[in-house]
């Protein structure tokens, strides 16, 4: 809207001087609006700073200007106007930083407000771009950070910017600085996000490796226990495999499955204190020997409870692997749900492995007989739900639904069809 007192035909009437002053003020306000909206509507950062420089130059009728940003340890000419491309960067000298931090207002390069550092920076640019004589030095920054600067050439018609014009410039520079600071913050946070993402990836890998090393260590320890008794060589490793298969079939959580794995590997750790002669004896044990053997779950517990495992209740699972659901087991005579589920799993897997391998007092049994024996003891010695999970795991391998990993090698004379038929009957009757 015309502020001018002149008519619509373009003639200028009385009050011309006032109207012209008002029009100037309005133009400057509009320029501030152009700058703000231009920044906001720009499609990308480069366009936003180009528009900002254009709005500033237009406001003061200046044809040449360079916008420098503090990037990569120097002040880079990110955008220039009215000049050939290739303006070199300005060194980030202490003196220049000091005066950018100090007076955050535009100064005339030739005036008293300009420090030596500013003059040197301007001279540096003038040497590289002889066609450019900077008249005004405008710092860009916030209370907290130095962001860059704008060098402006002389206004159309020569002369310097008036104090009032420099005041307007400082408002425009503050708007631009807020934008630059926001952009820098956004860029920094996306960079940090990237760093964090990589760190998490590296940590995850490291954790996986550590977990593997950890399990390998436990396996080695388990092998050492088994070595004490030639008949139980590999027992812990096999019990662990079977237990994990059952635990997964029961839909236990990831950490519960890991606890079952580790407790299975270490369930017989307490046998470290049992005499070798008793363990490898091929005749019936005396009452004293039997009592000695029955001490091992509690001994396992005593050792394992000193260790802080990253999985829940490992020591307790080892302690209770000889409990029976009818309450007649040892060491605590616990029954049913009072026995941790992981221990009920290990109990089945432990017996299963004992029956499918040769022992000092008998040869290993055919798989069908083993399954019958276990089924016969469901509800007395074993948790029927755990027995069901074992049977389903065996069925999956024999039926070809999952890769045959453990069980087919243990058939020992039982034929596949018989086994599948038996399991189907057993699962049906248990339901």
């Amino acid at each position, binding site marked *: 809207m015309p502020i*001018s007192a002149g008519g*619509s035909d373009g003639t200028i009437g009385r009050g011309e001087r006032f109207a012209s002053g008002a*029009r100037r003020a309005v*133009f400057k306000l*509009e320029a501030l609006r*152009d700058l703000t909206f*231009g920044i906001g509507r720009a499609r990308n950062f480069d366009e936003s700073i180009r528009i900002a420089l254009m709005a500033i130059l237009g406001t003061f009728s200046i*044809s040449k200007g360079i916008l420098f940003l503090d990037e990569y340890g120097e002040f880079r000419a990110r955008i220039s106007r009215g000049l050939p491309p290739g303006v070199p960067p300005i060194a980030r000298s202490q003196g220049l930083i000091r005066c950018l931090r100090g007076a955050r207002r535009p100064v005339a390069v030739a005036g008293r407000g300009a420090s030596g550092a500013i003059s040197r920076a301007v001279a540096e640019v003038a040497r590289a771009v002889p066609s450019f004589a900077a008249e005004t030095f405008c710092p860009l920054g916030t209370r907290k950070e130095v962001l860059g600067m704008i060098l402006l050439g002389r206004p*159309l018609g020569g002369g310097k910017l008036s104090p009032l014009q420099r005041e307007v410039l400082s408002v425009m520079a503050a708007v631009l600085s807020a934008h630059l600071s926001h952009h820098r913050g956004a860029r920094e946070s996306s960079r940090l996000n990237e760093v964090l993402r990589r760190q998490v990836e590296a940590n995850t890998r490291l954790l996986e490796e550590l977990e593997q090393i950890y399990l390998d260590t436990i396996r080695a320890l388990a092998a050492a226990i088994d070595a004490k008794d030639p008949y139980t060589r590999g027992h812990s490793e096999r019990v662990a495999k079977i237990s994990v298969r059952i635990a997964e079939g029961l839909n236990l959580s990831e950490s519960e499955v890991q606890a079952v794995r580790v407790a299975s590997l270490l369930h017989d750790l307490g046998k470290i204190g049992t005499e070798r002669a008793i363990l490898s004896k091929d005749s019936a044990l005396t009452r004293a020997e039997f009592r000695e053997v029955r001490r091992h779950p509690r001994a396992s517990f005593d050792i394992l409870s000193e260790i802080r495992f990253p999985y829940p209740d490992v020591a307790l699972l080892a302690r209770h692997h000889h409990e029976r659901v009818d309450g007649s087991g040892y060491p605590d005579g616990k029954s049913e749900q009072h026995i941790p589920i992981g221990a009920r799993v290990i109990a089945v897997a432990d017996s299963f492995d004992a029956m499918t391998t040769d022992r000092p007092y008998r040869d290993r049994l055919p798989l069908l007989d083993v399954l019958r024996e276990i089924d016969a003891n469901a509800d007395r010695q074993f948790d029927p739900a755990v027995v069901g999970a074992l049977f389903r795991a065996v069925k999956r391998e024999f039926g070809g639904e999952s890769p045959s990993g453990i069980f087919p090698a243990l058939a020992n004379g039982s034929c596949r069809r018989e086994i599948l038929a038996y399991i189907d009957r057993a699962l049906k009757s248990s339901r």
Partner: protein
Amino acid sequence: MSYLTVDTREVDGTLVLYVNGYLNSLLGEEVERVIQTVLNAGGQRVVLNFEGTKLINSIGISFIIGVIEKLMERNGMMAFCSLSPINRELFKITGVARYVKSFDTEGEALAYLGRRF
């Protein structure tokens, strides 16, 4: 390539450029590009016809000043015509009027540039 185009015509070696709409960053860029092309081809005289110009903002002024500089570097000449009172005043307060003469009609502007060369 900008989606905005400016209408132009050539009269006896003078480029007449019609600034239609809003002279802001988008149209300004196109005006600058067209004039640069003419200067590169050896042209020296330009008339900017502002009859269809709705508004000139500070960024538009920046382009006008850029064009003035370019023409002065090449000893070229420019004239404006058909300015609305508000734009005429805008050129006055921004100092642009001191460098470029404005005429009421395109004919007068063309005659002026023709006389000078």
